[in-house]
């Protein structure tokens, strides 16, 4: 990666733009106005990210600044909607923007417009180091969907799985497709394979329909020995499906993200793992960095902070449970 | 004279921006037919809707059997043995004849939680009552109303009202869509109801029908009662003029006769 961001304020591009006075590094904290472009607010994963951002915001507020969370109301039009949110943040006089780059083609122009217009940009959750460089963002904090998927696939392979089903209840969405793609990549590296089970929108949000669909896929193909889901709710459905297919002994379960129910299953030996990106950290660190840069001109030395993927399995599940109970995981 | 079954005193009704009805006082007696006459838009249907509990009057009082009452809903009114055929509607395309006949007053059998709608009985009664109106082609109570002809539907609505109009029967232009035979049947039914002591309110634009069955006449012009008389107190010409909203129909009829003559020549 380039060393662009490592030297702090001096790397700030085009600092002389019109509104630069309020936006340049080291404004002292009083006028800090951070905007966070995050996911849909009723999504459990983003709920934890927001929790981290909210905690970081306490410091900002205590120093007279403020943090505003902008999220799309649904993922139906994700790229365009997110691009509009970025512009919206910029237009509200953001002193820094923290954003997820889900659909780079759609969002990068907006991010570039912000960074070249003198508003420092911090990417988190999606995009990675490469897009951070593309849009002139100072750092990237988070995991990468495909990398996380790959880690999951590799973990499956290491535990002897040969044929993993990747259940996707939001087929066609960029982030979920990347997760399944990563799993397939990881599996093929380990000599197995992974196929995707896309479930139509007429099943979304109905755990029973998801459960029964997974069950039928398992019955149909008895070579399946692993199931991975893109969200915690679907993991609950998968657990029920595996049980109803009578395949609890044979089929291993993994999921992206986590909550208490999954961790309890891991502890009880009914689930293999969760792929954790530590969403709380993504929110917390990204906002903290933006604030520190805005207020004091401080910048971490790495331009990529990976919060994941971390695999939670029986070995480290207890620590994770206490985190979940605190609402941060 | 005997106590009227229904008495209206100074009843009025306004809609937003419109004074549809004002100062209507009327008496309806058992065993008599009251003909309500008047031009288009005179307020006849509005008055009928007040008497059937469909609209609440803006002012005035209604007495049934000498007791002042406030009709809260059409359901309320049917408890007094008052039944109405409204000018349009009253039938349900996609329901069976039997179900449609008994809407809102379903006969039940069984008891307690097992009380249930007696559909067979409903169908039988509905068919029987329609046949007494001269509709002979309807023989199955399960037939859908949507498959009846316009006149048969009108007859269904009338049969229903006659059946439930224990004390007062209100008919708003019942014969408008009917052929001569069916219309005559309706007139016969009205007379039979009168003979049984039912009070009938009959709205029509047909002066002959009105004169044939009416005992008592009330004429509305622009929402007000313009005249109120008994059988034989006015000539046919006078009644026609009143029905035309007070305008002299003679001129128009003369013009018509002239046109007719010139065409006939």
């Amino acid at each position, binding site marked *: 990666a380039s060393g662009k961001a490592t030297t702090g304020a001096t790397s700030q591009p085009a600092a002389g733009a019109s509104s630069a006075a309020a936006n340049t590094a080291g404004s002292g904290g009083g006028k800090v106005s951070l905007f966070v472009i995050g996911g849909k607010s009723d*999504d459990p994963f983003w709920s934890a990210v927001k929790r981290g951002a909210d905690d970081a915001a306490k410091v900002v507020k205590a120093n007279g600044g403020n943090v505003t969370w902008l999220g799309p109301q649904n993922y139906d039009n994700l790229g365009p909607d997110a691009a509009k949110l970025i512009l919206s943040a910029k237009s509200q006089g953001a002193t820094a923007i923290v954003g997820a780059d889900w659909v780079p083609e759609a969002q990068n122009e907006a991010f570039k417009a912000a960074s070249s217009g003198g508003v420092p940009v911090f990417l988190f959750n999606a995009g990675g180091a490469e897009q951070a460089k593309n849009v002139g963002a100072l750092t990237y904090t988070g995991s990468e969907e495909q990398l996380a998927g790959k880690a999951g696939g590799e973990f499956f392979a290491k535990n002897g799985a040969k044929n993993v089903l990747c259940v996707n209840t939001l087929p066609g969405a960029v982030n979920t497709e990347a997760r399944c793609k990563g799993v397939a990549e990881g599996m093929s590296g380990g000599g197995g394979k992974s196929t995707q089970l896309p479930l139509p929108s*007429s099943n979304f949000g109905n755990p029973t329909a998801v459960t*029964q669909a997974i069950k039928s896929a398992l019955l149909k193909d008895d070579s399946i020995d692993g199931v991975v889901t893109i969200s915690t*709710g679907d993991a*609950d459905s998968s657990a029920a499906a595996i049980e109803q297919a009578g395949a609890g002994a044979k089929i291993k379960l993994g999921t992206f993200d986590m909550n208490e*129910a999954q961790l309890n299953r891991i502890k009880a030996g009914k689930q293999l793992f969760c792929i954790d990106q530590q969403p709380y950290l993504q929110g917390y660190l990204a906002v903290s960095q933006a604030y520190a840069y805005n207020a004091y001109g401080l910048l971490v030395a790495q331009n990529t902070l990976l919060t994941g993927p971390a695999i939670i399995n029986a070995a480290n599940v207890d620590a994770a449970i206490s985190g979940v109970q605190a609402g941060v995981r | 004279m005997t106590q009227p079954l229904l008495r209206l005193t100074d009843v009025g009704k306004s809609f937003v921006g419109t004074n549809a009805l004002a100062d209507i006082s009327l008496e309806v007696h058992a065993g008599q037919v009251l003909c309500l006459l008047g031009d288009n838009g005179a307020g006849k249907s509005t008055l009928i809707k007040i008497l059937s509990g469909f609209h609440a009057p803006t002012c005035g009082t209604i007495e049934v059997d000498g007791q002042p009452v406030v009709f809260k809903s059409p359901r309320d009114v049917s408890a007094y043995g008052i039944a109405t055929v409204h000018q349009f509607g009253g039938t349900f395309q996609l329901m069976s004849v039997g179900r449609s006949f008994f809407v809102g*007053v379903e006969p039940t059998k069984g008891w307690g939680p097992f009380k249930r709608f007696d559909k067979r009985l409903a169908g039988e009664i509905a068919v029987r009552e329609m046949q007494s109106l001269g509709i002979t082609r309807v023989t199955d109570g399960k037939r859908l109303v949507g498959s009846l002809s316009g006149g048969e539907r009108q007859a269904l609505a009338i049969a229903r009202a006659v059946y439930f109009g224990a004390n007062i029967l209100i008919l708003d232009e019942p014969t408008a869509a009917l052929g001569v035979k069916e219309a005559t049947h309706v007139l016969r039914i009205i007379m039979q109801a009168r003979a049984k002591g039912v009070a009938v309110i009959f709205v029509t634009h047909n002066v002959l029908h009105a004169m044939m069955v009416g005992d008592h006449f009330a004429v509305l012009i622009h929402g007000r009662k313009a005249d109120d008389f008994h059988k034989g107190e006015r000539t046919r010409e006078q009644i026609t003029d009143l029905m035309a909203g007070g305008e002299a129909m003679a001129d128009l009829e003369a013009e018509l006769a002239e046109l007719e003559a010139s065409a006939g020549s």
Partner: protein
Amino acid sequence: MTVQISGTARPAAAGTSSGRSLRNLTYRPEAGALIGTLGVFVFFAIFGGAHFLAAAGTAAWLNVAAELGIIALPVGLLMIAGELDLSVGSVLAASSMTLAIVSGYWGAPMIVGIALALGVGVTAGALNGLIVTRTNVPSFVVTLATLFGMAGLTLGLSRVITGTTSVALNPDPASKAVFGTLIAGQFEVAILWWIVVALGVGWMLQMTKYGNWILAVGGDKESARAAGIPTNRLKIALYTGSGFGAALVGVIQTILYNGAQVANGQSFVFNSIIAVVVGGVLLTGGYGSVVGVVFGTLTFAIVNQGIYYTGWNSDWASFILGVLILSAVLMNNTFRRLALSYAPRTGKKA
């Protein structure tokens, strides 16, 4: 969105006795729906193979049908009465979050959580009914607004109370047995609930005067009112029923899956309407039957789950669903037309 119905008065020229009983069959609203259900069942029995026909395969579509059916039945009554309810999705989410928060997060006894969850559904339904009857705004718009509004309220309150949007619940064995058990390890207890609801709703629509009222209100609201039916109270009661149905499914899912998520339930909005319409209920009201709605629900569930037994790429699931919905509704329309031209042979006495 108007449906033109053309009436026919005279009987067909002649018909044998067996012809007559056939016509009696086609005359019922559920006939088209039954044929639809059989059609898709045979279709997937052929393409889905042994797994689809085995107990596990049967459980798959029965479980989905049961939950959908508990919502589709009261929604169907509403649609027969001429109204829509799009808000069921959010009502489901609200009631399941209520149960999870009250009994899971706060740890109150299950019975309290369940009662409050059902209470939320009933209240939301009554509110819909009140707004629809008081304001005369079309029910599509009112319930769309409550769909959004309740979703927002559920999200906002969950976050304020629990700081998260997904709450776990550890149901006690008694409530697990009543709402969330799997009979023979496969069949959800919801199937029994569905049967109970179907019998109750069916009895009401076919056997009691209230059924007659519902048909009349849907057929012509003004005439029904003139005939003495308390139309507003009836509609409020029906909305309360659909709110209750949605809440009941919320409770069942929360207990079955040991927790609740804010985003659950939205798929029921369209799916319940599809099940009802495929079941032969007229979208504009006044026509339909409970048996039909049950068949419509089964048809939808079989299509929804059968696809996974065919081994076809499920990318095409939505496509197949769309095609099958359209075919099923076309079938119903044909039968409704036949029903309207039904008339007995004139020779027969009534």
